[in-house]
């Protein structure tokens, strides 16, 4: 910031005004970096770069499943580095044997660009889980499809890096940076199946529409900057607490544009049209990651930008989220029941779920955030499980996703069919599965916030969407198989479940049942994962002459009528 201002001041003194730029010899204050807060990001990002470098330098030396094992280890490492952060945020003085260093409680780091609170750590862990499951599912898939290589895993890790940056962002520019890191990797992931033309098409569609949505988001950020004079959420919040901008329109337009950009990422309804095509075309493990990790990151961005940064403007953005939630739930459920392709049906069900999560978010209350996080956590397992079954059932070529291909699935593959039923029932919100508790939490949050009508819409859409899942179950259990050979010799058509995918499916099933029967533990953790905006504690070294521009907010430097800037 101030370096740019200095350059501008040298080039044309009339362009900028302000105390920092007027100084004749500018000194640039280097931000104090709290490395431990950045560790999850660094582990994921450097892990990806290291994998790419090593495999480029020594090609063909990686053993079978080596990439997947490496990716699982890196993601586990990132989660392990996030665990002490959770302890620090909750003011534990030690985690196991380790002493945790103060400051305790939520804190922000890197000159207020990164915020570490329960929410960001929770989402970090969730993205780590999504990466692990995505790597386990992909291991055999990539070999089966003949596209094995480090690229998938590198992109998966890079995309997760972006997701974690989004979850920790305390600054709209940092949020955008995370969004782009996340998205660009996923665009390529969607197109990674070189032999399937649908995959290429999905990648291109996602790229073009995603590029548009990123532009919308960035334009919104620019508008917000124009209205408030800052992109830092802490500074924006502090400014808005002191004075309401006279030219409100600029800020509201900015918020609207940002909502478009983030709404695209979570596939909320007016911006959902890409998702069925992309989920269908993209390789199934990639679709699993998009529905879990990318969605979690998108909701993290929404929560941080809207709930934290613009909490005072809740009465302005709540109606918009209300509409998005209602439309997502209804369109997802109603259009979903007409689908004859299982992956497309799952895509519409994912839109429906996004509606439920938006419903929790629009409550703009701690209970709403708890509901959102619980929903995200349980949904991650259910959707990865569902797409995991689709990965296996798609067979070589990844093309057998028609409802007709699932006929008689229960006789050829009874175990997989049973798991699929569990995941589908979970998604429909069947009692004793985690989906029920998640939907309950979301609806309860909406009712608490007084959005009765939205809660009713949610319940109706849950009833409609149950038909999507029942249709698949009926195809698996009650319809005869198309090929008589499969009917006569069911064992011949049995799919061999590889170890990695089997492990992922069992983990997802255990989570779906476990969080359904005993939801209290996860609910408590989700309740403790509250998002907080903390002003950067001004370090002693930087509190001198030019420190104010980079660290804590000095309200006097912000013009009283920001739009005249």
């Amino acid at each position: 910031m101030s370096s740019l201002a200095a350059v501008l001041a040298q080039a044309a003194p009339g362009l900028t005004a302000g105390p920092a730029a007027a100084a004749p010899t500018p000194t640039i204050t280097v931000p104090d970096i709290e490395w431990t807060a950045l560790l999850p990001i660094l582990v994921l990002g450097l892990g990806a770069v290291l994998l790419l470098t090593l495999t480029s330098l020594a090609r063909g030396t990686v053993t079978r499943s080596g990439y997947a094992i490496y990716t699982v280890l890196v993601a586990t490492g990132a989660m392990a580095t996030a665990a002490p952060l959770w302890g620090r945020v909750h003011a534990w003085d030690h985690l196991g044997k380790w002493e945790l260093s103060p400051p305790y409680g939520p804190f922000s780091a890197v000159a207020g660009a990164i915020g570490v609170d329960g929410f960001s750590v929770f989402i970090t862990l969730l993205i780590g889980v999504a990466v692990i499951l995505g790597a386990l599912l992909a291991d055999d898939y990539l070999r089966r499809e003949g596209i094995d290589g480090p690229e998938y895993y590198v992109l998966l890790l890079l995309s997760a890096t972006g997701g974690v940056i989004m979850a920790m962002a305390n600054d709209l520019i940092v949020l955008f940076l995370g969004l782009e890191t996340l998205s660009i990797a996923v665009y390529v992931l969607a197109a990674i199946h070189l032999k399937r033309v649908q995959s290429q098409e999905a990648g291109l569609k996602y790229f073009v529409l995603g590029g548009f949505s990123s532009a919308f988001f960035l334009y919104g950020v620019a508008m917000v900057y124009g209205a408030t004079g800052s992109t830092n959420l802490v500074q924006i919040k502090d400014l808005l607490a002191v004075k309401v901008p006279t030219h409100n329109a600029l800020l509201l337009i900015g918020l609207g544009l940002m909502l478009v950009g983030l709404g695209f990422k979570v596939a909320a309804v007016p911006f959902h049209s890409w998702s069925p095509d992309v989920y269908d075309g993209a390789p199934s493990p990639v679709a699993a990651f998009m529905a879990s990790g990318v969605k979690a990151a998108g909701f993290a961005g929404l929560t941080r930008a809207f709930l934290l940064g613009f909490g005072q403007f809740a009465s302005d953005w709540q109606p918009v989220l209300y509409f998005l939630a209602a439309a997502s739930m209804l369109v997802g459920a109603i259009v979903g029941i007409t689908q004859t392709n299982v992956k497309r049906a799952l895509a519409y069900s994912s839109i429906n779920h996004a509606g439920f999560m938006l419903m929790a978010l629009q409550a703009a209350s701690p209970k709403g955030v708890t509901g959102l996080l619980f929903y995200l956590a349980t949904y991650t397992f259910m959707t990865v499980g569902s797409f995991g079954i689709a990965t296996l059932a798609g067979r070589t070529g990844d093309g057998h996703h028609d409802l007709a291909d699932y006929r008689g699935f229960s006789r050829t593959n009874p175990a997989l069919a049973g798991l699929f039923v569990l995941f589908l029932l979970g998604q429909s919100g069947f009692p004793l599965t985690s989906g029920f508790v998640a939907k309950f939490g979301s609806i309860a949050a909406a009712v608490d916030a007084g959005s009765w009508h939205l809660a009713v819409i949610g319940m109706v859409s849950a009833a409609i969407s149950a038909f999507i899942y029942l249709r698949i179950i009926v195809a698996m259990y009650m319809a005869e198989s198309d090929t008589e050979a499969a009917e006569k010799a069911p064992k011949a058509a049995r799919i061999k479940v590889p170890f990695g995918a089997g492990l992922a499916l069992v983990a997802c099933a255990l989570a779906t049942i476990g969080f359904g029967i005993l939801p209290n533990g996860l609910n408590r953790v989700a309740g403790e994962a509250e998002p907080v905006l903390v002003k950067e504690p001004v370090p002693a070294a930087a509190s001198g002459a030019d420190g104010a521009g980079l660290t804590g907010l000095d309200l006097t430097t912000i013009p009283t009528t920001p739009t005249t800037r």
Partner: protein
Amino acid sequence: MSSYLPVLVLFVLAVAFGLLSLLVSITLSPKARSQAKEAPYECGIVPGREAPERFPVKFFLVAMIFIVFDIEIIFFFPWAVVFRELGGYGLAVIGIFAALVFESFVYLIGNGALEWGPRQRQRRAEIVSPDRTLTSTIRRVGAEGRPAALEPAALAPAAHHAPGHGDHGHGDHGAAA
């Protein structure tokens, strides 16, 4: 908002100038339409063949690598301007950035982006059968109909590999051991 007025004025002037130039050239220029005049390139030799042409995809890869460096240089310029003020921190940051950019270059070279000439297949294939040797796979002309005892013993398991396998099989079969 008033500070944006010069930008608006400049924008209007730019559009007006463009429109004016077009208008003047349409109204004042003498018209002499002929087929040669309507051709995409009016001057020079009349094109004898289609402009689109096949060219090796390697050129595209080289162009992509060039863009990688291009982007890197773009980010180097603002850093170089405030190099002294940023000091060691700036040097470290730009070093990390350059390392990451070069990393992509390592990947490109590692995957043969700069290898010219006919494409060499680097398919990692599973070894088909440990019994297969040069003598067992090569089919001998005139071997049919002779007593089986004369055939090499290992011919039978490799029999389903049709003749002509050698045409597309010159990848490194044994590399994946």
